[in-house]
């Protein structure tokens, strides 16, 4: 086994990864010690989690079937079942498609670098890290708060449900049911005493872990998007110095003259090696390139300068090479980001589609339930809680998807707004090609059906409000 060394996205997202592993997802890589015994233990833990989740979900479903007589109960139970369907779907989806997730996590293992832009790169990397941590804290707080709120609301109000009076068909009486977080059918009597306590604890575990499963995966997805956006910001920032680098010395004096006094002054010009494997399916990293400090001169191959050593753009051969290498860094980094976004879309697109399907149905039913709110009571609190949670989940990934779209389309703006007219021919061609590529914004699509953006969230919200209004009118 290779020695355990984290780099790239895995290193940045280690807290996320550990939490995901802790919650029982089938993420079995990224451990220092992956020997047979420990691996089996971890696999066992995941399987046990899966079994518990499915058992409880089955109990919920049986309860739904048993209580289908009463319309209100049917609606309420369907919403609960759909809610946990989504959590189970995410869990199973990850187990089935974990290879794609590993590939995405490994994509940034060997990014290129250039001495001129190291500082900017590190700054944006740190920014991305900070944002990812912040997101993780928010998700943890939100999940814990939801679980606690759910548990506390169980103890408020009476724990009853209405059934038909066995004596009189037309009347309904209220019958006590076990005071639990979710209504479920159990083969034992969970009304009071020890069975009730144990069932309650099991349900608290179930609710907390189900919420964690769904939210942690979403936050992994959003963290990837944060990283991609910060990389795009980095690329936009270095566009201007790059242009200045290539500007003709007589028309515009770049203050980047001191950039030429590179920190590694003793080294020759560094060029990125020209042998990438762009479609390397290796888990270690799709993108692999080595920066050769102490360089590999293709000088003779480039321009046939005269004896004076000053090229057509007024730059010396050395400067020309520097410009070329900077452009290469920019383009290769951009291509790397494109590959990352494509991998993210492949890994998570179908999950988003399934999420939207379940959410749409659930939100429609919630709109119907919301019309029956009569006052500030337990019912209102639960309905509004479900609504807010579902909408927050959709908003969570929509906002980051939207940011990606904005960032990637603003790269063209940045390319245009730098002083391209001062740059060399080569730099201008580079800007042209980049503009062609960036005309179409990079976006994540839900398995080709829809695009993840704030438009999606707006349409979902609008649909819920419309259904609510129409149903209220019909009452």
């Amino acid at each position, binding site marked *: 086994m290779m020695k355990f060394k984290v780099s790239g996205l895995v290193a940045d997202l280690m807290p996320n990864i550990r939490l995901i592993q802790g919650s029982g997802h089938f993420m079995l890589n990224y451990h220092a010690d992956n020997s047979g015994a420990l691996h089996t233990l971890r696999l066992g833990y995941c399987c046990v989690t899966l079994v518990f989740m499915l058992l409880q979900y089955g109990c919920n479903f049986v309860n739904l079937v048993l209580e289908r007589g009463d319309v209100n109960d049917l609606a309420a139970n369907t919403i609960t079942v759909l809610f946990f369907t989504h959590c189970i779907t995410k869990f199973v989806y990850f187990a089935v498609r974990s290879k794609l997730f590993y590939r995405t996590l490994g994509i940034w293992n060997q990014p290129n670098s250039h001495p001129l832009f190291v500082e900017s790169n590190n700054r944006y990397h740190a920014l991305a890290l900070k944002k990812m941590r912040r997101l993780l804290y928010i998700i943890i707080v939100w999940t814990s708060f939801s679980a606690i709120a759910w548990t506390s609301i169980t103890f408020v109000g009476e724990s009853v449900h209405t059934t038909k009076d066995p004596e009189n068909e037309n009347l309904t009486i209220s019958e006590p049911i076990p005071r639990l977080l979710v209504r479920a059918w159990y083969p034992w009597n969970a009304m009071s005493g020890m069975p009730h306590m144990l069932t309650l604890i099991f349900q608290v575990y179930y609710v907390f872990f189900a919420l964690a499963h769904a939210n942690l995966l979403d936050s992994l997805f959003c963290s990837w998007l944060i990283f991609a956006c910060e990389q795009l910001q980095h690329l936009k920032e270095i566009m201007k110095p790059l242009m200045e680098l290539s500007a003709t010395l007589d028309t515009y004096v770049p203050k980047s003259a001191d950039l030429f006094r590179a920190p590694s002054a003793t080294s020759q010009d560094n060029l990125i090696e*020209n042998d990438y494997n762009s479609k390397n399916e290796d888990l270690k990293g799709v993108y692999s390139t080595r920066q050769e400090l102490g360089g590999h001169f293709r000088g003779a191959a480039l321009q046939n300068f005269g004896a004076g050593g000053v090229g057509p753009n007024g730059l010396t051969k050395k400067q020309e090479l520097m410009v070329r290498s900077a452009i290469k860094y920019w*383009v*290769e980094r951009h291509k790397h980001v494109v590959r990352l976004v494509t991998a993210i879309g492949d890994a998570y697109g179908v999950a988003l589609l399934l999420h939207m399907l379940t959410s749409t149905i659930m939100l429609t039913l919630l709109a119907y339930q919301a019309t029956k709110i009569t006052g500030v009571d337990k019912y209102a609190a639960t309905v509004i809680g479900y609504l807010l949670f579902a909408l927050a989940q959709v908003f969570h990934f929509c906002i980051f998807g939207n940011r990606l779209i904005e960032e990637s389309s603003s790269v063209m703006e940045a390319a245009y707004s730098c002083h391209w007219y001062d740059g060399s021919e080569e730099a201008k061609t580079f800007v042209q*090609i980049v503009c*062609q*590529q960036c005309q*179409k914004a990079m976006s994540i699509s839900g398995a080709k059906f829809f695009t993840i953006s704030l438009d999606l969230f707006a349409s979902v919200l609008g649909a819920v409000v419309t259904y609510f209004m129409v149903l209220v009118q019909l009452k």
Partner: protein
Amino acid sequence: MSGSANFELDLREFVTLNIKCIHFFGYFSPEFAENSKKRILFRIYATVFVGFAFVLSLLSQIANMIDAFGDMEKMTEASFLLFTNIVQCLKLYCFMKYGARVWRLVHSLNRKIFKPRNATQYDVLKRDIGRSKIITKLFLLACTITYASWCVSPFLDKKGENGVRLPLSGWYPFSTKETPAFELAYAYQIFTTWVGGLGDISMDTFMSGAIMVISAELSVLNNALETLKQRFVDDPQKIREEEKLVNKELVRCVIHYKNIIGFANEVTYLFTDCITAQFLVGVIIVCMSMFQMSLVPVMSFRFFAMMLYQICVLMEMFLWCYYGNEVILKSDLLTQSAYMCEWVDNSKEFKQNLLYFMTRTQFNLQLYASGYFALSLQTFKAIIKSSWSYFAVLNQVHDQKMA
């Protein structure tokens, strides 16, 4: 560039199975020499077969429609198969009128520029050919199951009905109540609708096979663009040669794209009427069959038969729309694939050519039927929505009439 001998592939395999089926049903004549005996024999076979199985049945349905005019339930029952057969007529006409052009299209599948040049491209094409064959077989099977369930439904649903009725309505010059007239009519109906259904499916899957070719070739082009690379050499003289080579490769990709567009235009031109008619009529068919489904009890065999039929019709259109959508998505990807090639170190000429290409690929390749219906998932959604609203209206009108 090298080793292309290992990647020999007959791209006509995309549609050979479909062509064989269509030959069998007499809709499309094989390539025989002019005035040869075989050609005349085939023509006779086609006329007799198609005439008996298809034209007579169509006439009977038209007569039935005229007969049942005014009664909504009878009309819907008469109409849904009638409309399918009318569209099938149109497809038949297309194949017969453009027979030679269709053959040219099929043979042009094997043009040199469409052939794979590395292992990835070969795998993509092979996989898509396999898919096309599986889809054809699945569809034919589904059609057979649907018609089988139609055969069986009058016998299984007969409790409470006045005897066994024919599975489909039709007008016959004789009464079909007693044997042997009933058996004859039953056998005739089953035979003709089954044969008609299979013929229809083979023509539809031929068209979808052609669209799959476009989608597969776009994948090949995407791969070719991404792997464009100038070989690294030390000698400055050799560099010029390498630049020329990689430029030639790029130009080849441009020509490939032009060929794909030409092929797509040809496919669209040949089959545009069929596809439009299928979309327009498909809405009506789905609406009618939903209405029929609402008239019979849910657990009856007839309900399942109608549902299967509806699913078949929807799947036909879905197939076109899905692969049309794939074509749109893959042609969108061309700009990105061109960007992902190793262009930074290449010659100025290469970069300029690349720029021209990327400017063209900003516009994706959409397949249109009659210049209006784009083959995409949006169109499919619109079809479903329209069918549902027409069905709702029909239901309302029917309920009002009943009440």
